[in-house]
């Protein structure tokens, strides 16, 4: 399966390359064709062959452009081009009343066709040239009126055969070059792709190792920290002295802050390294999990009211871990920075999902953020005031996670009134 996908991407690379060649060549061909048409008009002065120059020339242009317009996806128009160029040669020979040098136009045509890097394009040209030479040569030889093929007074079968062999050799060589160029391009892309693949693999390994490193480091940091927290909890229970209790409270606060910092680093590293998941999201469950988790964090002992309003008409697919990170950070901020002057602190979570997007609004009636700080709150390590207890990573992580989900986040807040975060994420 892995191999298949790789082959597919590889062939996509080659296709992209060939498509670029096709576009460039098509562009050049436009100039060539109109020059051919123009040369036809110039040649018309010599023997007064205006009807041929305009009539045949326009028909050829129409044939080429109508095919290209009707079948833009297929390469058929290139084969038509091959025929068109062959007929231009025939037209010139006729216009110059069999002037020998006009036969060289066939070689110009053959050389032009190399640009598409497709040897098969030489075949229609060869047939047109062969058919034209045989027919017109024979007719002139047979003495038909108004047939111009050569100014030579001899046109034996032997001359015709040598003529055709030489033309055939040139077409074959041009075809060979076209084939070689294509093979070379493919080999080159193959090589670049493989190199890229190896580099990608190395990067992936390095990323994975770094992730493991961050994981084990944070784990190792958290293990003793949680032991400390556990011991403080036991000790708090045993202590009766007012002063000691106060100390424990402060030690606990510092330990929790440290733990929060370590978790933030882990979250940040995970967000930047992990691929974006796409699983079905049950917002009711997700929000409940978050609230269950954060219920006990209000240190003031006050109950914060949660107002949940989820309008869910459709199935949502997104990245659950990143959504959890976003909700955890925003809801915990709302609880942490509640306004102690207000008697009914609340956190309101409103989620409205449609087929194409999900709008999340998380608002509170907390202490609020001053207007001048709004542009900076999503910056790394930015803390609104010295009273901010966090690491300064929380909102930065939120913004990064929202970015990973291709969403946008905005804030509205006023000191003393509360804060509202609006998040819009596309529904995959």
């Amino acid at each position, binding site marked *: 399966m892995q191999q298949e996908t790789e082959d597919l991407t590889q062939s996509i690379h080659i296709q992209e390359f060939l498509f670029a060649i096709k576009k460039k060549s098509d562009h050049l061909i436009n100039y060539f064709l109109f020059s051919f048409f123009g040369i036809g008009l110039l040649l018309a002065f010599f023997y007064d062959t205006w009807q041929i120059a305009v009539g045949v020339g326009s028909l050829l242009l129409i044939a080429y452009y109508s095919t290209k317009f009707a079948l833009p996806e297929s390469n058929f128009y290139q084969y038509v081009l091959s025929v068109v160029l062959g007929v231009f040669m025939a037209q010139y020979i006729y216009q110059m009343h069999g002037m020998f040098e006009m036969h060289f136009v066939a070689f110009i045509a053959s050389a032009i066709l190399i640009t598409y890097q497709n040897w098969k394009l030489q075949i229609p040209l060869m047939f047109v040239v062969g058919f034209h030479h045989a027919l017109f040569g024979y007719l002139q030889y047979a003495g038909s009126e108004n047939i111009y093929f050569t100014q030579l007074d001899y046109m034996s079968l032997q001359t015709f055969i040598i003529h055709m062999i030489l033309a055939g050799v040139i077409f074959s060589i041009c075809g060979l070059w076209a084939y070689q160029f294509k093979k070379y391009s493919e080999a080159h892309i193959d090589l670049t792709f493989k190199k890229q693949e190896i580099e990608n693999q190395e990067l992936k390994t390095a990323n994975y190792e770094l992730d493991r490193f961050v*994981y084990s480091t944070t*784990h190792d940091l*958290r*293990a*003793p*920290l*949680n*032991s400390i*927290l*556990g*011991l403080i*909890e*036991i000790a708090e*229970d*045993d202590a009766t002295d007012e002063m000691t209790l106060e100390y424990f409270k402060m030690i606990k606060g510092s330990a929790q802050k440290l733990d929060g910092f370590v*978790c933030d680093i*882990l979250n940040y590293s*995970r967000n930047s390294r992990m691929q974006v998941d796409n699983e079905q999201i049950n917002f009711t469950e997700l929000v409940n999990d978050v609230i269950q988790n954060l219920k*006990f964090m209000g240190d003031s002992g006050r109950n914060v009211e949660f107002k949940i309003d989820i309008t869910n008409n459709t199935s949502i697919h997104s990245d659950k*871990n990143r959504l959890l990170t976003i909700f955890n950070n925003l809801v915990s901020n709302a609880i942490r920075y509640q306004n102690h002057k207000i008697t009914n602190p609340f956190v309101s979570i409103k989620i409205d999902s449609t087929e194409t997007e999900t709008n999340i609004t998380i608002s509170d009636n907390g202490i609020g953020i001053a207007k001048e700080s709004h542009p900076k709150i999503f910056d790394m390590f930015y803390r609104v005031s010295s009273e901010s207890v966090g690491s300064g990573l929380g909102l930065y992580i939120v913004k990064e996670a929202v970015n990973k989900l291709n969403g946008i986040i905005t804030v509205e807040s006023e000191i003393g009134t509360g804060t509202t975060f609006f998040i819009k994420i596309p529904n995959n």
Partner: protein
Amino acid sequence: MDQPAAKPSFKKILVIDDNPTDRYIAKRMAEKHNFAEEIILYESARKALEYIQSLEEEPHLLPQFIFLDINMPDMNGYEFLDEYSKISETIKTNCIIMMITTSIHPEDLKRAENNPSVIRFLNKPLNKEKFGIIEQNFSSKKKSS
């Protein structure tokens, strides 16, 4: 304020953790919150497994809950679970395994959730709230007395 007079909720629990401080915390917390009558502590997962297996003939002596740490030397939590899945059904129906860890790695969480023997994944430290949740969820297993 130390020991509430009420009877402990459960009969016997087993704590497997290589860290002596964490074992102590688990023990003290369980005592304080009157969680179990008997608290068995094991430093080594391998020895704990032997202990459980030795009780196969006397299922009433089996611990009702096993609190299992993940990161341990010699045999870690997952290796313990692998071995545990091979032992007799009698033991498995009598014991409920709770993973206790400091990990917040979603991979660990998924791994624990996918293991049929693991009922719950708890973050350290064990405290009153966590014991409370267990008591609520498994009230049927409480000692009938």
